C-alpha cells in the first residue's frame, strides 16, 4: 500500500516536473531567433538557464554540452532519489546505464586506438550501474574487465577482448544487446502494462537505429545477427536479414506502417545528400513520439516517468541542435525540419 503510494507520488511529481519541459514547437521556433539576447532571455527561463551566464555563452560549445548533458542527469537523479527502494529505481538506473555503457565504449575505443584517456571526454556522471571514476583510471585495456561491475557486461567485453579482430562494431553490438536484455528484464514481470510497452518501444527504437546504421556501415549481417541473437523484435531482425543493403532495408520498412515515417525520412536524406545522416534524430524523434503516445493513453501510470525521461532527452538533443546549428550556420529551415515530426 505504502509502496503504491510512493509510486503514485512519484507519478504526480513527474507530472509537476514535466511542466518544466520546453514545448517542442517553441523550441523549434528558436531556430529563427537571430538575436542572442532574445534567445538568452528565453533559455534563462528554462532549467538550462543556470548554465548560461550571459548571451555570449550561447556560442560556447563547452557550456552548451555541459548544460544539455547535466540537465538530463539532474532530472534522472532527482527521479532516482524520489524512487529510492522501489522497482522504478531499478528500471531508472538500468535505463540510465546506457550512459555508463557509452563511457565504457569511449574508454575502450581510446585504449584500442592508442589514445590516452586525457584525450577522451567522458560523460559527466558518476555512473548509474558502474563506477565511472574507477573505469577512467584503468591502465591497460584488459583491466576494464576487473572494474566493470556487471557480470554480463564484463563477460561480454572479455569475450570481445579475446577475439582476434577486436572489431569496434562487435563491441557496440554486444553492449547494445546487453543493454536491451538488462532493461527488458527489469520490466518483464510487467508484460502488457504501459511501462512494459514504453520500455519495449524505446528499446525497439534503439535496435532500429542500430540496424539502420549497421546496414549503412555495411557491417556483416552474420556479425549483427550473431551479436543480437535471441533479441526480441523479431520482425525488425527478419526484415534486416532479408535485405542486402540499406536501400532495400528502407524499402522494406516503408511497407511496414510503424516504420514508414522514419524510413521515408532516412531515405530522403540518403537520396538528397548521399548519406543517411538523419538516423539519430529520426530515431530519437520516433522514440519521443511513441513515448508520448503511450503515456497519454495512461497518464497516471508509471510509464509516464519514462515518457518524461525520453522527452527530456529529446529536449536536450533539440536544444543542442538549435544552439550548435546557430554556431555552425546551418540553414534554419534544415534545423527546423530536423526537429519537426514527419507526417506520412
Amino acid at each position, binding site marked *: 500500500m505504502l509502496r503504491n503510494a510512493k509510486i503514485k507520488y512519484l507519478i504526480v511529481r513527474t507530472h509537476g516536473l514535466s511542466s518544466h519541459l520546453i514545448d517542442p514547437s517553441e523550441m523549434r521556433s528558436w531556430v529563427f531567433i537571430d538575436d542572442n539576447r532574445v534567445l538568452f532571455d528565453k533559455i534563462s527561463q528554462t532549467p538550462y538557464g543556470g548554465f548560461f551566464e550571459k548571451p555570449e555563452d550561447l556560442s560556447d*560549445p563547452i557550456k*552548451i*554540452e555541459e548544460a*544539455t548533458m547535466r540537465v538530463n542527469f539532474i532530472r534522472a537523479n532527482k527521479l532516482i532519489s524520489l524512487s529510492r527502494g522501489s522497482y522504478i529505481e531499478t528500471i531508472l538506473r538500468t535505463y540510465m546505464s546506457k550512459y555508463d555503457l*557509452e563511457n565504457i*565504449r*569511449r574508454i575502450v*575505443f*581510446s585504449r584500442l*586506438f592508442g*589514445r590516452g584517456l586525457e*584525450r*577522451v*571526454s567522458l560523460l559527466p556522471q558518476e555512473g548509474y550501474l558502474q563506477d565511472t571514476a574507477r573505469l577512467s583510471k584503468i591502465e591497460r585495456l584488459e583491466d576494464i574487465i576487473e572494474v566493470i561491475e556487471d557480470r554480463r557486461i564484463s563477460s561480454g567485453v572479455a569475450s570481445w577482448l579475446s577475439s582476434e579482430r577486436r*572489431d*569496434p*562494431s562487435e*563491441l*557496440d*553490438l554486444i*553492449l*547494445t544487446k546487453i543493454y536491451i536484455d538488462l532493461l527488458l528484464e527489469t520490466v518483464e514481470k510487467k508484460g502488457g502494462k504501459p511501462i512494459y510497452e514504453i520500455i519495449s518501444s524505446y528499446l525497439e527504437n534503439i535496435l532500429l*537505429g*542500430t540496424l*539502420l*546504421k*549497421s546496414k*549503412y*556501415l555495411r*557491417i556483416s549481417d552474420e556479425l549483427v545477427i550473431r551479436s543480437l541473437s535471441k533479441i526480441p523484435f523479431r520482425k525488425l531482425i527478419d526484415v534486416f536479414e532479408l535485405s542486402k543493403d540499406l536501400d532495400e532495408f528502407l524499402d522494406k520498412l516503408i511497407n511496414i506502417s510503424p516504420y514508414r515515417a522514419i524510413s521515408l525520412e532516412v531515405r530522403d536524406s540518403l537520396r538528397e*545528400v*548521399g*548519406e*543517411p*545522416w*538523419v*538516423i*539519430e*534524430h529520426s530515431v530519437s524523434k520516433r522514440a519521443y513520439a511513441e513515448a508520448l503516445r503511450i503515456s497519454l493513453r495512461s497518464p497516471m501510470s508509471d510509464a509516464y516517468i519514462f515518457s518524461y525521461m525520453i522527452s527530456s532527452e529529446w529536449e536536450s538533443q533539440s536544444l*543542442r*541542435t538549435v544552439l*550548435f*546549428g*546557430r*554556431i*555552425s*550556420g*546551418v540553414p534554419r529551415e*534544415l*534545423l527546423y525540419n*530536423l526537429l519537426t515530426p514527419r507526417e506520412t
Partner: protein
Amino acid sequence: MFRSVGRVLPTKGFLIRLRERLRLLRSGVEALKMKRDQLVKESQSLIPDLRRRGEVERKLEEAYTLLKLAYSAAGPDEMRKTALLTTPLLTEMRVRSVIGVEVPEIKVVGLSLAVSPSLNAVVIAAARKFAEAVREMIPLVNSEAKFERLAVALADTMRKVNALEKIVIPDHEAAVRYIEEMLDEESLEEFLMVKKYRQIKRGE
C-alpha cells in the same frame, strides 16, 4: 663589347676555343629547345587533371556542409568520440624527376574510420565525405604541384633559350667575326711587311 664572351684575345688559339664554345652553345640551345617542347607537352598533359579542381571543390563544399550539420546535430563531444576511431591522415611523399625537374608525388597511405554502430550517423557521413574529398584531392594536389614546378622550369628554360639565341650566341658569333677580321688584318699586314722587306732586300 662582347659582355657574354668575356675578355677577347685576338689569337688563333682563342678563336679555336671560341668556335668550339659556339658549337657547344648551339647544340645546347637545341637541347634546351627539346627540353622546352617536352615541358610544354608534359604541362599540357596535366590540363585534364587540373580541370577536376571544380569537382574536388564541390566535394569539399559538400563535406563542409555535412561537417556543419554534424556539429549541430551531434555536437563536438560526439565528434571527439568518433575521432577516437580514426586513423590520422598518413601520406607518403617521394620526389620524381620529370625531364630533370623534381616533382613531389604524395600518396595517401592511411586514412580510415573504424566504423561502429554507436557512432552518430551524421558524424560518420561527414567523416566519409571528407575522406572521399581528400582522396580525390591528393591526385589534384600532385598534378597542381607538378604543373607549378614544370611551369617554373619552362619559364627558366625559355629564358635560357632566349638569352642564348638573342645575346650569348650573337655575342660569340660577333667575337668570332671580330677575331677572324683581326687575324686577317694581322696576316695581311704581315704579308705586306714581308713583301716590303723582300723589295728592300732586292734593292728595288
